[in-house]
């Protein structure tokens, strides 16, 4: 077992890393928008505008913290905290690489490899709805309340297909530990395909992906903050760092969801057909597994940006109809197929 020193270093490292990537994502999103819409995007602060997130951060820190007179003081203050806390903490059980050996000590590249890591993700993922609802209600603003109500119905509706898609993955791998799931995806499947979850769970992957976009409040499911209808939804009244926590928490959520997609369906740190641990030294292997994992996550981060600037927003009844009439029946059918598959391969 690892000592406290290593655990604290790991916590600080991965915590800072997720927030750094989330910060960079705000820049990538705006540059990506520029790329897709054939314009420049932010390009003043530093080369290619790379210091834009820093400038935004300084601006948010030095803004006046306005609390509306009519707002419920406690709930208004509690909203952003309750939203950001689960968002920032969800990565604790997701791996970010295999393991690295330093000075004879084996360090696994994951903060906490608990046996029920999966349940932790599901539990803490559904906590963020409280932040949105309480913030929206506490603002005492019509737009905020409408945004809060929309997001309640949407988040709980898409949690069911999300949970059912995860259930099929648990059924396939037979474990709740995300690290064991990554190990289960080594080698080849049917003799020529990489042994990744996507080839055994194609339907589950699509369901998980769609539900993940809805859970992260991203386009085409960004109805809680649809700017053309309800101004900014639940964070209309928020300013300064309280708003910053809402915006920032969303990007951290995107990073965690991308890492989950990679861990469950895209072989985590495993490369297809190549076993890196055979010909790389222990330190190089650790770094390589971290890099491979991160490159896969980076693709899905880019996909979030890509979809945002490509797809139009749904109408509200379309969102609910898609969730209940398509995704949940499909998720239940996917569960059947997976059970059959496991039955035949057991």
């Amino acid at each position, binding site marked *: 077992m690892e000592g406290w020193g290593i655990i604290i270093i790991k916590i600080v490292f991965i915590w800072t890393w997720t927030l750094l990537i989330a910060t960079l994502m705000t820049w990538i999103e705006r540059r990506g928008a520029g790329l897709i819409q054939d314009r420049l995007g932010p390009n003043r602060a530093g080369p290619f505008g790379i210091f834009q997130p820093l400038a935004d951060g300084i601006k948010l820190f030095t803004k006046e913290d306005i609390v509306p007179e009519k707002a419920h003081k406690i709930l208004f203050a509690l909203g952003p*905290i309750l939203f950001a806390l689960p968002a*920032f903490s969800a990565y604790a059980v997701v791996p970010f690489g295999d393991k690295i050996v330093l000075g004879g000590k084996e360090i696994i590249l994951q903060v906490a490899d608990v046996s029920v890591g999966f349940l932790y993700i599901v539990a803490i993922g559904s906590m963020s709805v409280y932040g949105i609802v309480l913030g929206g209600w506490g603002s005492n603003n019509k737009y905020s309340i409408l945004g809060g109500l929309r997001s309640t*119905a949407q988040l709980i509706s898409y949690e069911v297909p999300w949970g059912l898609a995860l259930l099929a993955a648990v*059924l396939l791998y037979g474990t709740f530990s995300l690290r064991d799931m990554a190990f289960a995806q080594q080698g080849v499947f049917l003799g020529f395909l990489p042994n990744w979850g996507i080839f055994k769970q194609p339907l589950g992957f699509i369901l998980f992906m769609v539900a993940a976009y809805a859970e992260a409040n991203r386009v085409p499911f960004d109805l809680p903050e649809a700017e053309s209808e309800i101004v900014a939804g639940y964070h209309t009244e928020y300013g300064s760092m309280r708003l910053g926590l809402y915006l920032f928490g969303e990007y951290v959520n995107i990073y965690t969801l991308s890492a989950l997609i990679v861990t469950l369906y895209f072989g985590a740190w495993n490369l297809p057909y190549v076993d890196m641990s055979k010909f790389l030294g222990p330190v190089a292997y650790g770094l390589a597994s971290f890099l491979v994992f991160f490159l896969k996550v980076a693709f899905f981060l880019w996909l979030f940006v890509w979809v945002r600037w490509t797809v139009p927003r749904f109408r509200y009844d379309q969102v609910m109809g898609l969730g209940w009439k398509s995704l949940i029946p499909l998720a239940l059918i996917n*569960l059947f197929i997976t059970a059959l598959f496991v039955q035949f391969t057991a």
Partner: protein
Amino acid sequence: MMSGFETIVMYLGMSLFVILAMLGISAMLGPFRPKPRKRTTYECGVPLIHPGQKRYEIKYYLVAVLFLVFDLETVLIYPLAVRYRALAHYGWGIFFEVFIFVAVLLAGLIYAIKKRAIEWD
């Protein structure tokens, strides 16, 4: 001996600490010049007609009830799913148990859709 849960608690503690620090620094760095006009509720610049927290007709309230049922059922299948591969060695019994469970769930969902529980009007 650490089971890993202490680490998660530390992680949560760090998140809470940084969030509170961010809010605290922001409160210290920002100016504080409250004015009555500044603190009014935002409504596109016009005077407030009635308070925001009035009674709303909540569409889709049945969805919340359905969510409770379906989420509970999902949670009930989790322990079964994690042991499924081991139990599948004993034959098809476990498959039919899952089949009946999920089929009842699916029938309930179809019933709810037919009863127009998730329609706008």
